[in-house]
């Protein structure tokens, strides 16, 4: 495992973030809405933080639910 513990999904809008949270919760993946980290974007909205180990499962769940992701980053 690498040094970072979390993965962060950036999304295009707050409604996507809320939808992503719902989808992930339903899929049983622990997630948290957090303010977009400053070094990733100057956007003042929220993004999704999950454990890095869940990244692939989470991306699959989101794709199946057609929630578009703007970017995936380590945190």
């Amino acid at each position, binding site marked *: 495992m690498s040094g970072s513990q979390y993965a962060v999904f950036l999304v295009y809008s707050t409604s996507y973030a809320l939808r992503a949270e719902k989808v992930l919760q339903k899929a049983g993946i622990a997630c948290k809405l957090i303010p977009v*980290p400053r070094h990733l974007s*100057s956007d*003042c909205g929220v993004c999704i933080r999950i454990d890095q180990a869940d990244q692939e499962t989470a991306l699959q769940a989101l794709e199946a639910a057609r929630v578009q992701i703007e970017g995936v980053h380590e945190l």
Partner: protein
Amino acid sequence: MGTGGLIVGERVDETQFEPQVRGGTGSHSEHERQPDFLPDMRESGTPNVVGMAGLQVDVRWVLERGVEAIRAHEVTLTHALIEGLRVIPGVAVYGALDAELQTATVSFNIENMPPSEAGLRLDDEYGIMCRVGLHCAPAAHRTLGTFPVGTVRFGLGAFSTLGEVETALGAVRQLAQEAR
């Protein structure tokens, strides 16, 4: 569902302005178009009754307590917050720095800690809600010299207390100390 209001003055001929969208009429269901009398002619569809009931209670509460009293309470808390933040080493406070000259929102930054991290930790570790970043006001932040990083912003209101201000100051003090 939101609640909007339209004040129509006596000099206005209300038949002279056309709405963007009409219907359903809300009262005269057999017609395709709105009735030609007020208030029905301006009330299409289903009114947001719950929202309006809430608004009525709000307005009543504000009138009972008094705008001046609410403002005085906010000034007291804002003053305490500004003065408390200013003396924390490593904290920069922005704005007029005078509670009488500003609203009850106070922007600040903690040295060596981006606003997004400060906001997350305030929420996670202290249960304190704030707004971080640019607050959808990039021009204001350019004026403050805080663009594009932004600030952490605390908002106080009629229901906030001095005790809560003290708790918030304690949290910021701790974060600022850790970040130094």
